[in-house]
Each structure stands twice: as structure tokens, then as C-alpha cells.
């Protein structure tokens, strides 16, 4: 049997959270609205209607492109992409083809570089609703700004894909705040393309695309399934042709949607209703992005003296990272940063309470009373008795169980005590 090397690329569609739609003034937030209540001549594609681009959506796209290390194009424009489908009212989608807003970016994950081919902007389509032998069209979603991020086929396994997607999710939702990135609502849609090559670093001569998956877990499953499926086919000397496939969430398998022999020719041409854009280098330099996750990790480690795991965890939760940054300005002594980070990471406080009381708690943690309450031993035993499952978990090596128990204990005995001391006592007791 031959050895095969998976070659995987990814297209991700993300709905932007702008106030209005991409080319009209209708509200972009269509979730749970009455069907066809957020529509106008433009997003219904009525005769005579014309698109006027949403500046904010363009700015958001450029922000994402910049955050993904892309080159921002000085000249950019929209194009028409033609196909017929009932949810596409104009018979074409306004998208970008030859001059997207961003090209040639990269993201580093697990010390592996994933290169980004393009970042472009387009409009979402309406939604078909199949009910009682009839199909209805809801145009509320029609014209919602849709960002598309396309990677080169740089992935060779599904774990890296999942990691990339998680990174992207944190980036657009928390750091750039340009999308609600709500997976259940379909505001982030994922399309991996998978093929197997017999030569490492070379592309296969076919490509299988899996369309419209809305969970990271399912993307991983779809990729793993495809790798197996294709391996089997290749091993039995079958030729694989280009295909577009769907993913069945119940069976966890992919299924044929259409073979690419019937591939559509989208007849792209420049959208004549929207003048092309020209951005000066100055315009593009003015596009500001916040500190990015990897920059934050670097700063937390190098300047704030956190350990790498802490920095990594904090970088994935911007609320916590920000709380950390805010708290440490109150303490001149960086040696306490690790402790502060631990307190934040282990959820020993809630970030939704007012800052002054959080600060007070932290101070208590950092300068604890060493005197333990009289009934401390009784309390600790009680906690252990009442939380069997957690105790078992701890014994089988789950560190999170320890923090769960510690939290419970602190709730009882008050948390203005020396947490380290209490933690050690708890461990001692647990190991008895």
C-alpha cells in the first residue's frame, strides 16, 4: 500500500456584524426576525435597484486581512458572480474575484505556517425554508456582509485545521469584534477541501470540497472521513474526480452533491454598479488592528513574566487577558503576575463584578491571612465527602478537579486566605 499525504485547504465564510447590510440600509441582524421583514428593493433584487457598498464592512474586511498578515490591495473592486438559485434574487452574487481587499497573508500555529490566499467581501444569499411540501424564501439574510477567508492547501491534518479555526474564531469575535461568529446561527461557515497526494509537498490532481459545515468538530470529522474514504478509493486504484460534497451530521459522513464535471462557469465580470476602489498607502496604513493573540502571548511572557501556558490560555479569552492587564497596573511587583494570572485563569473570581471588588479580592489573595479558621479541617473533610466525583477525577490525574474543589472550599471558608496554603492543605488531604 502506498503512503498518502493529505493536502487540505480551507474556505471560511464569516458574517460581519455591521449594523446595516452590505449594499442597502436594511438591518444586517436577521436572526429570529419575521421572514422578509428586513428587506428593501436592493436586497430583494427588484428591477432598477442598485447596490451602494457599506464602508464599515469594507473597513472590517481590511482589518481582518491586516490581522491575518495580508497585503492590502491599493486597487480593489467588486465583481458579479452568476448562477441561478432561488435564494439569489439578482441571478448573481456581488463578490470579489480578481482584486480582493486582501491577499497573501499568513498565520502561525503550532510552529506551522498556514498561508492565506485571499480575504474578500461578498453578500450573503437569502434562505430557503422547506415546509409541508413547499419551499419558501426568506430574504432577511440576503445582502448581509459576508467575509471569505481562503487558505492555500497548507494543512496536512485535521487537528491543525481545527486549531486554525479556533484561532480564527477568537480573532474575529474577540479581538477584532467584526462578527458574532455564532456557530449555531451559521454566522461562520466552513468549507474544507481535501485531497491525497502520493508525493509529499505536491498537490494531487483532484480536489474534494465539503460545503457548509458549521462546527469545528464536524470539519475535523469530515476531513478524517474524507482521508479514509479517498485512501480506500486510491488503494483500489480508482481515479478520484473533482467533487463537491456535503456533510451528514448524524452519520458523520460526507456525501456527493455534484461532480465538478458539471462545475459552473460563474461568468465573473466587474460590477458596473460600484466604482472600483483606490486606497492610498496612507489610507491602508491608517487601518488599525489591536494587539493580536501571538503578540499578547509574547508580551505576557517577555514583559509580564508569565509562563507560556498561562499566556496562551489568557490569549484565548480576551476578557480575562484584559482583566489581567488592568489588575497588574495596580501592583508594581511583577513577581506577583503569575499568581494573579492563576487566580484569573482558575476562575476564582468573576469578571462581571465591579472592578474595585475584584481588585479587593485579588489583594486578599495576594496578602492572605495565614490564620486558618477553627473549623477548617471539618470544612475540608466535608468538601471531600460531598464531591466524590471530583475527588475521583483528581485521583485519576485531572488537575481541573483540584481547582473545582478549591473553589468550593474557598466559598465556605472565605477567600481572603492564603490560597496557596489552602491548596496545599487540600492536596495533602486528598492524598491521604
Amino acid at each position, binding site marked *: 500500500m502506498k503512503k498518502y499525504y493529505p493536502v487540505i485547504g480551507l474556505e471560511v465564510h464569516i458574517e460581519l456584524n455591521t449594523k446595516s447590510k452590505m449594499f442597502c440600509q436594511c438591518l444586517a441582524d436577521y436572526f429570529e426576525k419575521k421572514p422578509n421583514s428586513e428587506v428593501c*428593493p436592493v436586497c430583494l*433584487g*427588484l*428591477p*432598477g*435597484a*442598485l*447596490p*451602494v*457598498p457599506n464602508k464599515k464592512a469594507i473597513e472590517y474586511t481590511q482589518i481582518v486581512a491586516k490581522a491575518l498578515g495580508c497585503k492590502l490591495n491599493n486597487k480593489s473592486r467588486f465583481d*458579479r458572480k*452568476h448562477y*441561478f438559485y*432561488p435564494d439569489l*434574487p*439578482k*441571478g*448573481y452574487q456581488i463578490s470579489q474575484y480578481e482584486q480582493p481587499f486582501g491577499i497573501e497573508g499568513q498565520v502561525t500555529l503550532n510552529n506551522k505556517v498556514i498561508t492565506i490566499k485571499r480575504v474578500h467581501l461578498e453578500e450573503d444569499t437569502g434562505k430557503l425554508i422547506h415546509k409541508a411540501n413547499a419551499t419558501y424564501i426568506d430574504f432577511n439574510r440576503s445582502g448581509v456582509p459576508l467575509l471569505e477567508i481562503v487558505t492555500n492547501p497548507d494543512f496536512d491534518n485535521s487537528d491543525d485545521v481545527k486549531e486554525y479555526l479556533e484561532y480564527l474564531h477568537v480573532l474575529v469575535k474577540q479581538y477584532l469584534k467584526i462578527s458574532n461568529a455564532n456557530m449555531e446561527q451559521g454566522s461562520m461557515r466552513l468549507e474544507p477541501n481535501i485531497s491525497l497526494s502520493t508525493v509529499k509537498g505536491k498537490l494531487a490532481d483532484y480536489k474534494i470540497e465539503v460545503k457548509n459545515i458549521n462546527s469545528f468538530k464536524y470539519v475535523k470529522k469530515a476531513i478524517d472521513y474524507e482521508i479514509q474514504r479517498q485512501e480506500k478509493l486510491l488503494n483500489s486504484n480508482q481515479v478520484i474526480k473533482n467533487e463537491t460534497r456535503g456533510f451528514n451530521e448524524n452519520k458523520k459522513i460526507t456525501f456527493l452533491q455534484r461532480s465538478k464535471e458539471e462545475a459552473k*462557469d460563474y*461568468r*465573473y*465580470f466587474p460590477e*458596473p*454598479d*460600484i*466604482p472600483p476602489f483606490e486606497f492610498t498607502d496612507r489610507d491602508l496604513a491608517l487601518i488599525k488592528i489591536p494587539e493580536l493573540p501571538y503578540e499578547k502571548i509574547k508580551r505576557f511572557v517577555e514583559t509580564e513574566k508569565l509562563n507560556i501556558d498561562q499566556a496562551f490560555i489568557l490569549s484565548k479569552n480576551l476578557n480575562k487577558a484584559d482583566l489581567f492587564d488592568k489588575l497588574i497596573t495596580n501592583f508594581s511587583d511583577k513577581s506577583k503576575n503569575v499568581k494573579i494570572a492563576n487566580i484569573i485563569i482558575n476562575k476564582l473570581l468573576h469578571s462581571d463584578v465591579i472592578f474595585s471588588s475584584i481588585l479587593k479580592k485579588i489583594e486578599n489573595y495576594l496578602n492572605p491571612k495565614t490564620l486558618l479558621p477553627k473549623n477548617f479541617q471539618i470544612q475540608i473533610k466535608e468538601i471531600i465527602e460531598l464531591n466524590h466525583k471530583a475527588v475521583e477525577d483528581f485521583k485519576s490525574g485531572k488537575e481541573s478537579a483540584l481547582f473545582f474543589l478549591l473553589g468550593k472550599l474557598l466559598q465556605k471558608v472565605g477567600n481572603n486566605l492564603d490560597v496557596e496554603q489552602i491548596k496545599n492543605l487540600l492536596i495533602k488531604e486528598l492524598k491521604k
Partner: protein
Amino acid sequence: MELKGKKLIELISLINSKQLSATEVFNYFLKRSNKYNKQLNAYLTICDNQTGIPIAFKDNFLTRNIRTTAASRVLEHYIPPYNATVVEKLLNKGFSVLGKTNMDAWAHGSSTETSDFGSSKNPWDITRSPGGSSGGASSVVASYLCPVSIGSETAGSIRQPSAWSGVVGLKPTYGRVSRYGVIAMGSSLDSPGVIALSVEDCAYILSIIAGKDKYDATSLTEDVPNYSESIKKNKKYVIGISEEYLKDIEPDIKKNYFKAIEIFKKMGHKIKKIKLIDPSYSVSVYTIIQRAEVSSNLSRYDGLRFGNNRSSFSEEAKKRIILGTFTLTQGYVDEYYKKAQKIRTLIINNFKQAFNNIDLILAPTTPNTALKLGEFQKYSFFGELMDRLNEPSSIAGLPGISIPVGLDKTKLPIGIQIIGKKLDEESVMNLAYQFEKETNFFGIIKELFKKYPD
């Protein structure tokens, strides 16, 4: 009071001085419209019970609650829920819709013969075409069924029917007037404009309808001048004339064109020979770009909405969809669409260079006077050939006006056109206005009105 033949601005001044009410004026034209429409088939819809100053719109301008068909069966029963920006602006100024004028279906043609509701007739000779695609719009003005009408031009669709009908037709700079609510034909070319009896009426209407529209991203932001005033400044111009625009032109048209040149000279304008790219190149460029855009713009009429389904498309639209689809198809898009765009750039630059040395260009509007109905079936690309003298300036997005300059041997009107720099409608109309004052367009239209008594 004798109203017949009064210009729009004269009617408005009568209304303003309370000698007449707008309703009286409206009803006067309503009566004439009802009387002669059977004969001319110039309107597809006539609206009664209105109280404003009457105006007619080509039936590709969306009018709220008034049927808008683009003269196609596909939209036979389509009632739009909104007004085109041009319509909205005029209604706000006290105008009322008197009617929706006939046209080539989807504006595909130069004779109104591709209308799915029958061709309009030329008021000069009802066995002939009034031109097109805004043929109904030129016909209602020439027969005085409406004092002024709004048309649209992609390449020639205002100027050519105005020339064939003996009236004034203004095609503004692309983007000067909003396209919002105008059923799209060639989106990179479509320009709403005015058909009237006089240049002053065109200037008056353009002052109302021009300007940036937040609903049209291609509308231009430059301030709108007061055209009615600026056309009255007595300016002297350097007028360019080009040999390339005289190939295969009917002798009577040539003769009248040269007569006009002499008049301009006598008035103190300078005539200068210039060299322009042969208009026949524009025929190919225009055809390719326009067909590509047509095939795209008509995609929305997919049979799911708007009433009738795709089997209601007639032959011309189907031909254009097929040709446009072809020119955008992979493997051909470079050879056709992209090459056409390159030549388009050359044509734009050619005009730019020419305008370094001249203010305006003077040329015949059409190679022929009005043809007999049915002639168009003899030629493929009939429209493109008829409009070849308008296509170069349309491709370049330039403003132009066609004005009557006399009659040919068979008593059919002849038009000449004045083409200006981008956004220089002022000079275009200024020179046209000077010519009108000097010649009164030789009184030809007053003669025609005799055939259409109240």
C-alpha cells in the same frame, strides 16, 4: 388660450402666474394623449386624475403603483413598490405622471419595434419608426401629447429617436443623473435624459434630475449648475468636426450638417477639423460590453417573481442574453469582454485628447432619417448600426444633445448632435440653445403640430 406648441417653461410660467392651473394643463395633454395614442402607440399606460404638471416617463423608469413593463411581457403586470430617483425628484417639483411611454423591450433596439406591445409610430409618417429605444418618449413630444418626456440612453436611445422625431434630446454625462429605479440595460452606459421641444426645457429638467444620489454609487458628486441660466451666457466655442463621422451618411443629412456648420461659423464660433477613432470600432466594443451587462442584468427575471416567466422573453432579449453569456464565458472573456474594455479605454482617451484643442464636437446624430417600420428585421445588429454615431461618446460616458436641423427630401426630420466633455452639459446646451435662438429649428415642429389638432 392656445396651448399647443408652448414649451414646458412657458406652461410653467403660466401656471406660476395663475393664468392656468396645473390640472388644466394636465387635462389638456391627457385629452390629446387619449385622442392620438391609438394612432401612435406612444404610451403603454396613460394616467388620468392627476393634478400636477404633466410629464411622461419611458416605461423603464419605475413608478410607484403605476405599471412599469420595460415594454416586455415579462413585466406585463408589474406594479413597482418604489419610484426611480428621477421620478421622485420630478414629483417633488410638482410634476405628475401623464403616461409611461413605449420603447424597445428592455431598451433593446433603435426603433421601438422590439416592444412586446407593438411599435410606436413616427408622428411625421406613421408608416415609419420614431426611432428608439426611447421612441414612445420622442413620439409623445413630437406630436405634443406631452410637453416633455424622460428617456434613457445606453448608446443613442435618446438622441436617435429625437433626431428621427424632430425634437431635442439630451443625453447627460454617465452618472450625472441617478440610475436608481431605472430598469438596467447596460449598467456602465445607461444615462437617463430628457426629450423636449426646446433646449431651455432640457436645461430646466436637467437642473431638477441631476445630482448625487445616495442610492446610486455611480452618480457623480459634482455640484449641479443652474443650467437654465448658464445656457444663456453668450459664449463662443471651438467646435471640432471629424471626417470619420461622415462615412455612409445620407446626402441630405450631410447637406444639412454642413448648413449648420456655416450657421455656427456665422455666429462667430470656430470650426476645427479633428481626428477621432472610426465609430465602427465602437460598434463592436459597445455590442460586447452591452450584451455582457444585459445578460447579467436580465438574470433576475428568472420566472420566480415579477409575474411572467422566462418564456415571455422575446427574440431580441434572448439573442442578447445568449451573446452576452458567451462573451463572459471562460475561454472567451479575454478575447471579447476584456479586449472590449481595453478598446473602451482607448476611445475614452481619444476623446480626452481631442478635447485638449476644442470645446465641443459637432456631428450628424444618425446616418439615416426615420426608416419604414419593418426595416429593422432586414439587418442583424440594426440598432448598433443605426446608433453608430452615438456609440463612441456613450462608451466614453460623455454628454450629448441632438437638435433638429431641417427636413430631408421626403419631409422627414434630420438631427445633428453636439458632444461635450465629461460633465460639460452647460457648453453642450449653451451652443444648442444659441442655435435654437438663431434658427428656431427652422420652424419644422410647428408644421408637424398642424397634423395633430386639439
